């Protein structure tokens, strides 16, 4: 957004890391104590801080992101209602900063979905059977194709997923959303005039 341009995204291919939990709230994704900053980068180290690290800052064994096999995975698989709770965009920033390009889940909370799409993080909502397969196959190599709006993996029939059409167009073409809104200025002027402003 700072530059007035946005990077185009067509597809992501990566191994998955599976966080088998429903209702993952944004306080877990990035606890509030990391929000006292005026920057929008550097949040990756605090991603899932209280699930990833113990009170002394040591990695908790058994947490999916701490496993060797999860290194470099760019697709996070989680349960239903991912990103519920606080509107903090820092949650999307933290996932991006850590290296995720997509979150695959049963469903997404509204504000998180919006925030993700504004930061080139794909929220991929898939039906329960596909989610069950992905959850049972951590580390699966998946291809998320934004052009075709499908998720594919060897052994899993292609799964279509919904994306708001304008967000898809914007991401595929690297269109800056604020630039688009600013291009509506004449209509906004006219609207304000009708209200006597």
């Amino acid at each position, binding site marked *: *957004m*700072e*530059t*007035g341009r946005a990077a185009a995204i067509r597809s992501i291919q990566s191994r998955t890391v599976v966080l*088998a*939990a*429903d*209702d993952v*709230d944004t*306080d*877990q994704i990035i*606890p*509030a*104590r990391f*929000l*006292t*900053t*005026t*920057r*929008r980068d550097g949040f990756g180290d605090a991603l899932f801080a*209280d699930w990833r690290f113990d*009170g002394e800052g040591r990695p908790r064994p058994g947490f999916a992101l701490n496993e060797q096999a999860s290194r470099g995975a760019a697709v996070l698989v989680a*349960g*239903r*209602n991912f990103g*519920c*709770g*606080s*509107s*903090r*965009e*820092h949650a*999307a920033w933290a996932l991006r900063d850590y290296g995720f390009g997509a979150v695959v889940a049963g*469903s997404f*909370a*509204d*504000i998180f979905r*919006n*925030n993700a799409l*504004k*930061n080139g993080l794909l929220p991929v909502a898939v039906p329960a059977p596909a989610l069950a397969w992905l959850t049972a196959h951590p580390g699966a190599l998946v291809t998320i194709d934004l052009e075709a709006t499908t998720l594919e993996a060897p052994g899993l029939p292609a799964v279509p997923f919904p994306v*708001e*059409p*304008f967000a898809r*167009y914007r991401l595929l073409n690297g269109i800056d*959303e*604020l630039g*688009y*809104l*600013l291009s*509506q*200025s004449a*209509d*906004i002027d006219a*609207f*304000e005039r009708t209200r006597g*402003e």
Partner: protein
Amino acid sequence: MTPRTLFEKIWQAHEVVPETDDTPAVLYVDLHLVHEVTTPQAFAALQARGLPVRRPGRTLGTLDHSTPTDAAQLLGRIPIRDESAAAQVAALERNAHAHNIELLGLGDARRGIVHVIGPELGRTQPGMTIVCGDSHTSTHGAFGTLAFGIGTTEVGHVLATQCLLQRKPRSLAVFVEGRLPAGVGAKDLVLAIVGRLGVDGGTGHVIEYRGEAIRALSMEERMTVCNMSIEAGARAGMIAPDGVTFEYLRGRPGAPSGEDWERAVERWQTLPGDAGATFDGVVTLDAAAVEPMISYGTNPGMVAAIGGSIPESGDDAFMKALRYMGFEPGERLAGKRVDLVFIGSCTNSRLSDLQAAAAVMKNRKLARGVRMLVVPGSQQVKRAAEAEGLDRVFLEAGAEWRESGCSMCIGMNGDVAAAGQYVVSTSNRNFEGRQGAGARTLLAGPATAAAAAVTGRVTDPRELAA
């Protein structure tokens, strides 16, 4: 003309450009509330592109989230301890000044929690669209507004264009029939509603709360209900404006006056949904069946009556939540140990909330070992409570009486609970670590919180009624 709901009327009145299959609507924003935590990156984005704030007069700022609530730090006798929080405060002061935005600064007698001050100052008015980089913006829907939380990128969009790109949400009517029993409050009602809908039952929807029990609520109670709409996943919650709404607003500094007032009321009276208007979903609750409620788990849908028990069984998530809370399936909630009590937050920090807590605590002391923070929602609420002597009730009981702010609702301003502690809290979220890493939150209304403070146990406040 097709009958329209309250939501549809407000939505249509703010469509600068209606949505199409390919493009979302351009929706005009009447009031943009800003605070120190979710705005610095948005102002930076404007600055990087050399963009002005389009309508500074439609933007109102306050300091609440990372702002400390102890008087010495807040009022400058000592510096704000957390340097990064101090930098956020300084950034909003600088940005507000640079863009000619009104900011209720640290020493301002009108400062307070963003969702308390908007209504209190009369800036929140029926029929408006209101947004803020905070999910509890749904609070303002109590006035018959369309009010919802947005992310920081969208804060930048509103600053620059006074508009948002939005898809029209679906509508959900929550009917609450009958009357709430004596001793059962708005917080109990909304906890029961969230328990019924579940934490994603409202996703993609705007809720309109309707029915006799809703009509009977005061404005402060209606704000408590709308506040927690997001805890059911809803985009917003709203209540049709009526005489109660107008009486609350009359004479407030931001409200219209004189002939403008009469014209405004006439306009507001056209807002309630038309007879025959339909919703995408309908849920009905019986108010008479609602009891004092408390949460036992790690999301706001995990609630039960205080006189009841934790469910006997559940899925993996249920068991994981109980492990975090240190509870067992089937346990009774009444009598559970309490270490800390927090009265405050945009859910329950208004004068009537403090009155309800003080009524329970009058002539009583905190139970041994219990700590209690009482944090008014705004400096105006604080003064009004002090004028009634409520501060004396809390202080004489042994509680801390603070300056206004989000405080222990969000654990990013120095007010936190320790790992393992049980906190009965009038706030809105019981997520893991929400009130401090490892802290265990039990959400409840102000009377229940006060009862826990004086007994040191989860207690039905009706047992302490005089």
